[in-house]
């Protein structure tokens, strides 16, 4: 069963536990700047929105990578950056129309959500279930993918 992160902004309190868990698990430090999930704070609306990679089916980041450094994890479907292959050219950071691949100047590589190999720390750390890891069919993934299709440069699956 394909799983995906489901984000429900209505339940988010802006506690940033997800950012801390993500940066600690992936980078070994409690540093939101190195988190692959980011909570946006809309002050004037009193609203928080956690935001990360949708793992799109035909990922722009993967297609744009010049050196084959982004591959698909067969188990989770996550698009995963290989640190040993990434040269830090950042083309994926401008190619991703969601802006969910970021450059880490201290390592010279790019960072993106890899679903923690199938056990996402952000979902485990979230105290209010604003972030859950569920059957992909249950998420708003389709809605996001439909939006993504508008970004597309040409029909993807035409015959």
């Amino acid at each position, binding site marked *: 069963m394909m799983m995906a992160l489901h984000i429900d902004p209505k339940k988010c309190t802006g506690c940033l536990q997800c950012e801390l868990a993500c940066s600690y698990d992936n980078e070994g430090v409690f540093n939101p700047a190195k988190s692959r999930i980011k909570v946006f704070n809309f002050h004037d609306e009193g609203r928080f929105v956690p935001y990360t990679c949708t793992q799109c089916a035909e990922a722009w980041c993967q*297609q744009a990578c010049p050196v084959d450094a982004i591959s698909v994890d067969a188990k989770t479907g996550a698009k995963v950056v290989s640190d040993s292959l990434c040269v830090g*050219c950042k083309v*994926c950071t*401008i*190619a991703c*129309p969601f*802006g969910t691949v*970021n450059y880490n100047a201290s390592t010279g590589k790019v960072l993106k959500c890899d679903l923690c190999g199938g056990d996402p720390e952000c979902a485990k750390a979230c105290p209010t279930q604003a972030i859950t890891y569920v059957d992909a069919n249950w998420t708003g993934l389709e*809605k996001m993918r439909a939006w993504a299709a508008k970004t597309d440069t*040409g029909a993807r699956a035409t015959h």
Partner: protein
Amino acid sequence: MRYVIVGAGPAGVVAAETIRRRDPKGEIALVGDEPGEPYARMAIPYVLTGKIGEDGARLRKAKDHYKNLGIGYRSGRAEKLDRAGKQLVLADGSKLAYDRLLIATGASAAKPPVPGLDLPGVHHCWTMADARAIAKRAGKGAEVVLVGAGFIGCIILESLVERGMKLTVVETENRMLPKMMDETGGDMIESWCDAKGVHVLTSTRLKGVEKEKGGRLAVALDPGGSVVADLVVIATGVKANTGFLAGSGLKIEDGVVVDNRLSADGDSIFAAGDCAKGPDFSGGFMVQHAIQPTATEHGRIAAVNMTGGDARYKGSLIMNVLDTAGLITASFGHWEQGEEARAADLKAFKYVKLAFDGDRIKGALTIGMTEHIGALRGLIQTRARLGSWKAKLMRDPTRVVEAFVSKVP
């Protein structure tokens, strides 16, 4: 079906793979004119810094990738297109018959018309062979003149600085990155380079190169006398590789002109990547966007149409991201004119400029931003209406990613 793809850069390789997925039985010939396996030109600066070996620049890392997909990869240089005979003639005299042809021959580094550029020690930085030649002369402390401060010049600059070379940059226009940045941005990058010890000469033209006693080079400038160098790197733009198409009857401008299916003849010949001139995202006019994302998108869409599909290309969006000795800059779409919002902090080397078309963003420039910048592509390419966010962004354009997130999920 016999497919011939001439050119083994990103456009050609993605096209070959896409054709194979869609036509398991077709015969695919992929022709490259440089030795070794297909590699990414974009990775050359990282080869020069020593961050990766030459293998690390390969477009595909899996062993026997092309063989396993049944893609016949061969080396050869296209010499002539024989449309009547439906065959491509290579420089060694061999002929490749095709039912569908993809022209993905890319571009070559252009040489300014000045004397002395054939001297040893004067190089482009365009092919792997160029990179090897530069590495040979580029020891620590060596003096280098880099001619051209456009995108390619600046990306090479990074690796020359990292190698510890003493660098003078010469640019004809009045600022660095004249096409990718406005004056504020170009000047910001120049002062960043100055602070890194790179000597930048704008509004300066290369007059010629002469050999000095002891094998060094004298680089004559206009205005501004002469600079002595151990190495001269020429990065003054590129030119589409379309020479072999002379007499073919195909429409050639600064690239092979293609329609929204990326066909050059409305039938069996297609073009993709740096050598193609296709529709622009914003208004349908024809452009040559020599960037990696355009090359791979072109390659994929051409391949769909070559295999009997009907994919209509919505047009390319020009965008670039650049690391100039640690200062990260990006540009998207058409930022040159129209209503705009700007926020600049010159001392902190931070800059954001958004260009609007009504309540949509049509272009953007950023300096010193590495978080979520792809959202700018998303906003521009989906033509997302900003509604009430337009006024907020006019006041503070640094909030663009927030505007994006509030629009999407």
